[in-house]
């Protein structure tokens, strides 16, 4: 499975705005490069990234080839309750990776 690096604060105060950082290993082949054999290398990118907080979507991104390899996103959410923050990446050639992190909200 492609390696993902996720950073979510382990603890937060209720109502606090927290920053979430995500990084996933993926070449994001644009579909515009020509290989040494003269053929265009087919596109192979992550197309969607969804982050959910206890099942509710809090951040969604639609990626195009212009997103750099090893896609990186940082974004914010309000720490509402303790629970699970889930991350799903999907893309070309059936690419699908899921990760989760837990957060304790006081």
């Amino acid at each position, binding site marked *: 499975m492609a390696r993902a690096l996720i950073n979510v604060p382990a603890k937060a105060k209720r109502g606090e705005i927290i920053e979430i950082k995500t990084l996933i290993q993926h070449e994001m082949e644009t579909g*515009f490069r*020509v290989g*040494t054999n003269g053929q265009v290398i087919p596109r192979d990118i992550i197309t969607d990234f969804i982050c959910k907080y206890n099942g509710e979507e809090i*951040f969604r*991104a639609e990626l195009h080839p212009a997103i750099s*390899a090893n896609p990186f996103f940082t974004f914010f959410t309000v720490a*509402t309750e303790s629970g699970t923050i889930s991350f799903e990446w999907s893309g070309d050639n059936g690419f699908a990776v899921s990760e989760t992190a837990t957060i304790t909200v006081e």
Partner: protein
Amino acid sequence: MTHDDDIVHATRRRFLTDAAALAGSLGLGLSLMVTPARATPETMRAAIKKVIGEASLQKGKVKLDLPPLVENGNVVSVSVSVDSPMTATDHVKAIHIFNEKNPLPDVLGVRLGPRAGRASFSTRIRLADTQTITAIAEVSDGTFWSASVEVIVTLAACVEVL
């Protein structure tokens, strides 16, 4: 040589140097140029129109942060933040990023809601050439706001041969 030949040669030369710049910035030394059509200000406008429809684009609220001089077009840090209280009745629904010189005009579409707390995110994008990047925010009241930044993209000196 006729005047028409001159125009054809000039266009072809610019096309090839632009393609070489694109290839160079994508990290490949190419001897054979097979190049895609590239985005132009027109295709970017068309891509923006698909998002905003008939609404007008207002300047303001959106802060688009890009380094003015980029060390490598393959990885350019971008931050977008929009001035918004992010409440249920007044929040940013989406933020789109567009460019005018990559092969495609769309870069990224981000969906947000009141749970974000802050209409702000960062990512890393690829830029093929010195160009203008535009970020557009869609607000819950149906209005669209934008900001643009001109970025200078230099190429790495020693390009790899695969």
